[in-house]
């Protein structure tokens, strides 16, 4: 499987690790950008992405996630198809209306599938799939 390289987004000379991932629950893929966040156990998307995918948010498996200020938010897990580069797989990701951050988040549930390199000198994030 081939690795894929993403350029950092830049904001005020700071590197922002944003990557495009494609999601689907039915026939059509939707490409949505997410912040690579190794501090997040689950990948978390806001409830508006659930709506886009035709999911009934509250029908997912409910879990509570701790966010930056120490409070708990309800997260609903749904199984979706995900594509990164040409790598396609299915997994459960979280959706919440209380995300409270400016990004959708790509968490360790996805990052565990790859050797992820943050190459700040080259300005790239490299996803190299683990061999099965």
């Amino acid at each position: 499987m081939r690795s894929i390289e993403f350029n950092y987004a830049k904001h005020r000379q700071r590197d922002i690790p944003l990557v495009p991932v494609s999601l689907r629950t039915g026939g059509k893929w939707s490409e949505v950008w997410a912040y690579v966040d190794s501090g997040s156990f689950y990948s978390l998307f806001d409830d508006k992405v659930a709506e886009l995918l035709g999911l009934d948010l509250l029908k997912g498996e409910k879990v509570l996630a701790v966010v930056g200020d120490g409070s708990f938010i309800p997260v609903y897990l749904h199984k979706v198809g995900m594509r990164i580069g040409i790598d396609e797989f299915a997994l459960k990701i979280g959706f919440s209306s209380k995300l409270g951050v400016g990004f959708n988040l790509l968490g360790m549930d996805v990052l565990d599938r790859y050797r992820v390199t943050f190459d700040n000198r080259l300005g790239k994030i490299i996803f190299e799939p683990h061999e099965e």
Partner: protein
Amino acid sequence: MKGALIMNKNQEWVTENFEALVSKYGGKYVGVINEGVIAAAMTPKAVLEEARRKGENEEDVSLLKVPTEEELVCVL
């Protein structure tokens, strides 16, 4: 290992223009296609509906939740 895949032109445009997107569209979703913004709205569904009205294929639209300047300060 085979050569690495790289971002397409549309995706590169998003990373190169991220700061301008934050300034103009912070707090909204934007849809990007052909190296430009095709629509901006509060939900990705509304963005795709607008893109479809403009004759674009939904699957060609890249959807970015654009943070506000304040949200970026919190993250960074």
